[in-house]
């Protein structure tokens, strides 16, 4: 490579990790996938073990990689091979590891491993078990490929693959129409964002073909350090916005966030892995990966920051009024992803990745906790729960830890990362800081609302099992809830550890220095902690918990009276700002089905099938006169050819007079 990032970074060393090791991380889950795909049907029971083995191997190697990169203070190591080259198009195949990659590797494989373990309990007895683990392994492989890629092209390949896996897994229970619809929605909505990414790819090909899509080269180019090819701000902004469009689709940013809550139709472990911890964070990762590009464009940064802030507050307000346990979590995820994007837009590279890191653990924990609750009550409806603390102590305590962490209570993980974001907001943009504080308040409020409704009070019986539903794999008796088996509670306990402690890595700028070494240059802020910000955010979080306590535990004020007071807001929140309805009614129903289809069908029927006139159609109905319409149609088609020629000739003469 002509440009090596470590030149700019004398402080960080070069990790010594060898190339086979890095590829092995990628290959392990792929092998598991292949084996499950080949033998999963015959021996469905081994699928889970194969998945555990494959992902477990990748996980061990990831930790090895992390320690290796830590020895080099987060420096960069890249192995690049030419895949093929033709004319000006060169495409490489390579792996790149640095602080950012190492952190992502550890997050992906750890969460994936624990989720697979949990799944062996959760999915036990489902007749699609083999297919499930195969998809999960394929997803893990794709996600690892995405973070290990050393060039944008490779990122794009895996980007599409994770999208496909997500589609397959959301629609896993495809016999449910809602699941099939949710899968389609996710696919189409993220696709809209992906167009932006494709445009960014083409733009790079046009502007810097010599970069061969290499990440370091693109960062270099965007920073204006490439001799003889200094891009204009417009070009950089366009590229940045293309990247961000792709990221916004995957990371469910407003107004493309509508697919993520529906994606909860998939099995809960899928939601935990893909739609909480990893894939949805891929957008944040992508923006962080190309952070120097965003540094070079203030306009793009503003867009990112504001879209992130809007996403955060919109999703948080919707979460306030959800009655479905899992949907609360889903909107919370959207909101937190917005938080991370906002941080990136405010130059808070470190804060965003740090929050991604801690969020992955506590949000996966919360999702798995909700799955555990569902496992015992057969429902996600919080109105049918209550009092579960007594029946499911492990689930309760771990869920409480996750919630406290998400709410940002000292000294749990979420406190540290959220504070860094708020600190960056305080420094860069006070308006966004205020939004951030509001979101923090709401986050604490809706999480504890969910806790009080689910785990406290008296149990309301769950959802009775429908014994006629042969697809249901529910085993227990919802009337008598019970704690989940150890394969499900063990991951909860294990995830609770990082949910408590992951934030402590902020100590002495350890995390900061580690992942900043991945950037060619550092313009970031100095300190990552300020006592004033910490106090203000803690006060706000405690106020949120207190409000939830007052309303849902003590019932000093009833939730009904609050709803009545703020009725207009409540209605907007309950209807999710009418966005889904807008999309579905306007675009899908009115325009697609109503307008276009009718127009096209009419065209097919009247223009194409019988250009002559209605007599042809009448004749078709009378099959004895079939010959008449044939000749009629052919005449019409022939006429079409001649008319086409005339139109073109006239148009050319008109456009370019002789």
């Amino acid at each position, binding site marked *: 490579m002509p440009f090596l990032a470590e030149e700019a970074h004398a402080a960080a060393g070069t990790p010594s990790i060898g190339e086979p090791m890095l590829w092995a991380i990628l290959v392990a889950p792929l092998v598991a996938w292949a084996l499950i795909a080949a033998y999963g049907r015959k021996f469905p029971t081994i699928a889970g073990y194969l998945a555990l083995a494959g992902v477990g191997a990748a996980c061990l190697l990831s930790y090895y990689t992390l320690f290796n990169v830590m020895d080099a203070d987060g420096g960069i190591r890249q192995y690049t091979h030419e895949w*093929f080259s*033709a004319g000006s198009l060169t495409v490489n195949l390579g792996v790149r590891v640095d602080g950012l990659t190492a952190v992502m590797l550890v997050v992906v494989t750890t969460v994936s491993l624990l989720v697979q373990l949990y799944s062996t309990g959760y999915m036990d007895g489902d007749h699609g078990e083999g297919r499930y683990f195969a998809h999960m392994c394929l997803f893990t492989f794709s996600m690892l490929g995405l973070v290990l890629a050393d060039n944008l092209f490779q990122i794009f390949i895996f980007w599409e693959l994770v999208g496909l896996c997500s589609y397959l897994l959301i629609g896993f229970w495809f016999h449910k129409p809602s699941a099939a619809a949710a899968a389609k929605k996710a696919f189409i909505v993220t696709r809209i964002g992906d167009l932006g990414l494709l445009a960014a790819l083409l733009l790079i090909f046009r502007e810097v073909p010599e970069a061969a899509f290499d990440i370091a080269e693109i960062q270099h180019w965007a920073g204006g350090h490439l001799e003889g090819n200094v891009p204009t701000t417009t070009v950089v902004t366009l590229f940045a916005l293309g990247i961000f469009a792709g990221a916004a689709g995957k990371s469910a940013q407003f107004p493309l966030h509508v697919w993520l809550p529906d994606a909860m139709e998939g099995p809960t472990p899928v939601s935990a892995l893909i739609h909480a911890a990893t894939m949805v964070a891929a957008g944040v990762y992508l923006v962080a990966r190309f952070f120097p590009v965003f540094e070079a464009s203030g306009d793009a940064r503003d867009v990112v920051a504001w879209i992130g802030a809007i996403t955060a507050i919109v999703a948080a307000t919707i979460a306030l009024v959800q009655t479905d346990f899992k949907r609360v979590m889903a909107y919370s995820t959207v909101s937190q992803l917005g938080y991370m994007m906002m941080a990136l837009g405010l130059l808070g590279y470190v804060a965003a990745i740090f929050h991604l890191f801690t969020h992955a653990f506590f949000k996966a924990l919360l999702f798995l906790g909700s799955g555990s609750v569902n496992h015992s009550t057969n429902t996600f409806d919080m109105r049918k729960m209550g009092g579960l603390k007594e029946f499911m102590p492990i689930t309760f305590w771990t869920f409480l830890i996750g919630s406290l962490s998400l709410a940002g209570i000292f000294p749990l993980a979420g406190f540290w990362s959220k504070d860094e974001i708020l600190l960056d907001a305080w420094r860069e943009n006070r308006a966004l800081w205020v939004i951030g504080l509001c979101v923090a308040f709401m986050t604490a409020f809706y999480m504890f609302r969910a806790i009080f409704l689910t785990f406290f009070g008296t149990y309301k019986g769950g959802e009775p099992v429908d014994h006629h539903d042969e697809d249901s794999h529910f085993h227990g008796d919802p009337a008598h809830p019970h704690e989940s088996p150890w394969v499900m509670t063990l991951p909860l306990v294990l995830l609770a550890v990082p949910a408590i402690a992951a934030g402590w890595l902020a100590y002495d700028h350890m995390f900061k220095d580690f992942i900043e070494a991945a950037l060619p240059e550092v313009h970031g802020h100095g300190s990552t902690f300020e006592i004033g910000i910490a106090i203000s955010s803690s006060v706000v979080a405690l106020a949120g918990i207190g409000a939830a306590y007052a309303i849902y535990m003590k019932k000093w004020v009833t939730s009904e009276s609050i709803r009545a007071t703020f009725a207009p807001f409540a209605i907007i929140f309950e209807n999710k700002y009418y966005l889904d309805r807008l999309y579905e009614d306007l675009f899908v129903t009115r325009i697609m089905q109503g307008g276009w289809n009718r127009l*096209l069908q009419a065209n097919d029927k009247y223009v194409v099938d019988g250009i002559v006139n209605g007599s042809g159609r009448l004749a078709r109905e009378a099959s004895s006169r079939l010959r008449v319409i044939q000749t009629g149609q052919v005449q019409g088609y*022939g006429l079409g*050819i001649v008319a086409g020629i005339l139109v073109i000739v006239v148009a050319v003469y008109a456009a370019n007079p002789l």
Partner: protein
Amino acid sequence: MNGIDLVGPQFSVLATAGIVLLVDGLMPGHRRHLPFIALLGLAVSALWTLSWVSRDSFPQKDVFGGTLSLDEYAVFFYFLFAGIGATVVLASIDWVNREGRGQGEYYALLLTTCAGLMFLSAARDLITIFLALELSSIPQYILAGWGKDKRSSEAGLKYLLLGAIASAMLLYGMALLYGVTGTTMLSEISASLQANGEQYRALLVLAMVLLIAGFGFKMAVVPFQMWVPDVYQGAPTPVAAFLSVGSKAAAFAVVTRIFFEGLGADFLSDDWSMIFAIIAAVSMTLGNLMAVVQTDIKRMLGYSSVAQAGTFLIGLAAISVPGERFDLGGSGILLFTASYAFTNLGAFVAIIAISQKIGSDQIRDYAGMWKRSPLLTVGLAFLPGVPHRHPTNSGFWAKIYIFNAGVRADLLWLVVIGVLNSVVSGFYYLSVARQMFLGEAEDEKTISTSPSIAVALGAATLGVLVFGLIPMPLISAAESAVDALRTVS
């Protein structure tokens, strides 16, 4: 030598057609071997071509007084047509046996049209081009009407009548071109136009548009596409498969040659570039939007092929100026023809197998196909649809080339339309895929696949995957072909 070896690839195919007829007539007991004789003939043709390529020595570039050009460009298509022919033969075996009549004629006609297409891709002279076109077209008319049902006869007749109109237009255009330049050789036409063509621009525009109409019919682009859905739906499916890839690819081969080599003069190239660009935009958009609402899978593929042809045309619109744009656009077209051939043949082969068993081409009857035949489902659901937008498919590279050529030719608007259209096309392929994977089958009986179908589908799938993962051989073949075309002119 009397020069017969120079057209060896074509003649081995034509001779095989004769042998097939003889065996059919004289040895009726050996009729079941006919398709294998046909395959053998195509293999000999491909090996003959390979013997030139592998030694990197073409006997002569210009043969038969310059009417044919034996270069990497022609050779690229020789291979392509041999491959398409072989796949269609394999895909036809079950259908022809079931039909139970005229096996010899069927394969002989198929071989003849293959030979015609090979001539077409090598021709550099208007008369030769016309003859080659007719040699390939007339058997296609007969084949389209081969089925016993009325729809097939209707399709054959329609195709014949409209084909005749298109040929007439083409001939008229050629006559005008001859009138202006006094020659039928592409190289001489080019020289004559460069020297003193500008004064005849009005006439030349007319000639050009007539040529575009004549070939546009074969390429199936708007507004010369109207026959496509009817004929695809009515013709026997193997024949429809052949029409959708074979004659389309040949039309693109010859149009690229005529317009780049013969009509490349500055005062004309802007005009035809713009015509192609507009036809491209309209074809892509109309083709895709119509495909969305189809309920018959063959009609859907028909409209989809119109849209695909529109994408090819972006490449043609971009090649009006020699240089990098030409290289990118030209290679893009060749890549696209090849990858499109693999994917569409795969899809059609799968349809052949499925419709033979379920007796329907309605998309709703494909529900739950995944449980009945995973192999066919993969062929139909994944070959044409999803992978076209994924880098592990050769079609993706073709699109990158074509779009890039478009961007460099300042046709950004056209590229944007192209990219938007690829989203729409993803949508209807996805809906077919969804039916097949997630729909409920009324009848869960497994659909068995005959060995010939499995081989054909396997070859198409392998082609898609191999050239997707290792696109270099295909890309370099396309680039050297385009190189040859540029140096000739």
